[in-house]
């Protein structure tokens, strides 16, 4: 399936994956980030159950230097 992460199309096996599986795949464990799926924030506590599906648009953000 195809999903859009930070504006870039990515191909994944299967029809859906959990937010946790995505985090593992992207090697984001232990890092500070937040995920928005189709405009809605995904609460960290629910990553095990929340699923990402074909065509979803994700924004994954972190904190960077800024004024």
């Amino acid at each position, binding site marked *: 399936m195809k999903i859009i992460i930070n504006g870039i199309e990515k191909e994944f096996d299967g029809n859906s994956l959990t937010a946790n599986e995505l985090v593992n795949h992207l*090697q984001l464990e232990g890092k500070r980030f937040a995920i928005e799926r189709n405009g809605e924030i995904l609460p960290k506590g629910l990553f095990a159950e929340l699923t990402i599906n074909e065509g979803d648009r994700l924004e994954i953000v972190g904190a*960077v*230097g800024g*004024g």
Partner: protein
Amino acid sequence: MDKHEFNSNEWVIAGRPFQSRLLVGTGKYRDFKETRLAIEKSGAQIVTVAIRRTNIGQDANEPSLLDFLPPDQFTYLPNTAGCYTADDAIRTLRLARELLDGHNLVKLEVLGDQKTLYPNVVETLEAAKILIKDGFDVMVYTSDDPIIAKQLEDIGCCAIMPLASLIGSGMGILNPWNLEIIIDTVKVPVIVDAGVGTASDAAIAMELGCDGVLMNTAIATAKDPILMASAMKKSIEAGREAFLAGRMDKKLYSASPSSPMSGLIK
């Protein structure tokens, strides 16, 4: 604590006590090590950060800003730099709150155009109302318009942060009169945000009676950022003390010698 009680260095933003009146940004440094050293030297307790897309596919072990400025040692102030609409700013700060485990103290800035980065106060007011309703403690970047500053306080912003001059311009305080009116009118902390170029600018802001100063470029782009951070710390303290001490009146022609007039040799 009422901001008019001056017997302590402590001041309070939205119920959170702080000692340092210098707030600093974390952008434009050469590397994270320099960021850390300069901010340590500045004595700042509050540091602003921007929220940006994570670089997917990057080296998982690449260091991040948070490794150098651990969130348990500093109060993070996520900003909305780069947002030109209320909607974008609100979306950014909701992501920031999730990212920082529910931390709700934020810096709202909604910009008007890319050339000046001047605040769009209409969008700012709109965003502030929604964010406050949503439980955020909003420190708000705004113009030096005293009416807008008061309106932002009235809708519940916890700190009013007027510009001294344009973001990153280093032009210093262009309208001290407006800042004085804002300081006189607003009861929550007033923090000059943007435009400070060197230490004397920060001292002047504090002498006017500002509660604090937020800066980034003046430190980060100095030839020696760590030394400038030290200078800024001292200027903020000096300006604050001068404000508390109460300056002498300015007298153009009534010269008054500091040495005794009697006992002069003849």
